[in-house]
């Protein structure tokens, strides 16, 4: 299928619903497997850090959630552009469904960071650049959530959130830079592509967990999208037909 026809087909919630069923299951299974493998590896097999001892194992949760928090916001910005320019229904639903996941990932990144900070820095909280950027990100996610809750009409809420998501996306680099410039204290993040500062037996489980979190995101997003499609298209014939079928048994994920 050419990209152009794919683009047009994405405009049809029905097509997307029918296609996404197996993908949802697949991502769910992959997330469960990868996270199980990654976490056992991280907790039991990976060697102890010679400086931080065992507390560094929090990194295997902290780093993926922090990465996911940013990826989810990117998704929102892109969905916002697509919604405003092409009025695609699916983009509207992505904007609605991805926000809670992003909010929770940001919160988890902050909380696990605080827990990690206690044994390594001796304090739960410091006003360090990356922590503050993450906090701002939390407020941005919360703003999107609150704005949607406040606007009664669904399509107006969707487009208002699109504008806000785009404005946020343009501002995030400026916010990050300014905060970074003013409060730098954090250890530099080790880059996964250009050679990590960790030995491979330490960073491989991290890699597995990051992929696992991405699969989890895909699973939760697709599952919420499919539910949202059913809700919005309840009156159509194809949804009524779907409802007649017995519930598809999705394997228990995670």
């Amino acid at each position: 299928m050419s990209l152009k026809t794919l683009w047009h087909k994405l405009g049809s919630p029905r097509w997307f619903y029918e296609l996404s069923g197996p993908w949802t299951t697949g991502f769910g299974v992959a997330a469960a497997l990868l996270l199980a493998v990654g976490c056992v590896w991280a907790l039991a097999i990976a060697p102890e850090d010679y400086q931080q001892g065992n507390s560094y194992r929090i990194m295997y949760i902290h780093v993926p959630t922090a990465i996911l928090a940013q990826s989810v916001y990117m998704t929102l910005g892109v969905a916002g552009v697509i919604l405003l320019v092409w009025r695609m229904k699916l983009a509207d639903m992505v904007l609605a469904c991805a926000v809670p996941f992003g909010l929770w990932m940001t919160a988890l990144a902050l909380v696990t960071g605080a827990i990690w900070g206690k044994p390594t820095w001796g304090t739960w909280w410091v006003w360090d650049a990356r922590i503050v950027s993450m906090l701002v990100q939390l407020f941005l996610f919360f703003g999107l959530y609150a704005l949607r809750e406040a606007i009664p009409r669904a399509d107006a809420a969707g487009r208002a959130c699109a504008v806000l998501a785009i404005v946020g996306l343009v501002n995030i680099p400026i916010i990050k830079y300014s905060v970074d410039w003013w409060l730098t204290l954090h250890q530099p993040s080790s880059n996964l592509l250009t050679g990590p500062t960790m030995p491979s037996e330490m960073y491989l489980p991290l890699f597995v967990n990051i992929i696992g979190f991405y699969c989890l995101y895909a699973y939760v997003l697709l599952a919420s999208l499919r539910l949202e499609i059913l809700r919005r298209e309840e009156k159509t014939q194809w949804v009524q037909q779907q409802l007649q079928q017995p519930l598809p048994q999705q394997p228990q994920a995670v």
Partner: protein
Amino acid sequence: MSGQSERNLSLNLNQGSQGLSKRLLRSQLGRELRILVRSPADVVNPLMFFALGVMLFAVGLRGEREVLAEFAPVVIWVLVLLANLLSLENLYRRDFEDGSLEQLVLLARPGFLAVLGKILAHWLQAGLWLCLVAPLAGLALFLSPDQAGFLFITLLLGTPALSLLGSVGAALTVGLGRGGVLLAVLVLPLYLPVLIFGASAVLENMAGFSTSAQIYWLASITMLALTLAPLATLAALRISVEQ
């Protein structure tokens, strides 16, 4: 006399021709300023809020000279941010209620300039006055005259960005009954870079360091906001007007 002035208040929307855009901006700005002259409370209230905030900080810190001078740049910048935020709520509310906002969004061409006119008027109403009053507050918090003057310059560069960024939030929340707290939640994260560069410029200047980086950053944030924020505002107003 009243009939004449009422007509002056009506929207002067020039459609179509590009050559008329300058007139659109001017007439929009003129209309806003005439409204402003007739309701001085809109100018005075944020300033009173600002002065009250300065007083609360000064008394709370027991008026101690060294402490106040150290905190003054941050206190003043934060209060400017908040005073500006409070004044945002009225930016589109009245026009939304009497229906002229709808005309502005649907009819004004180019809409960019019409919105820019409103934002400029908001800056003249809130930002400019805060810029003028803040150095006095700085002197009251024991900044030296030089530093108060420098504070004025940073505010002059930064406050337009506050009006511009804030107008997007105000446009998104204008149709909602009680948008006040929501507006703060939406807008304050976007204000953070302005606060950082503004306050740090004054702090570093007091410590005797070079501050050109902050000045350039403030100027470029304002320029970026000037080019993008009216577009985002216009999109947001269209959504708010439709509901």
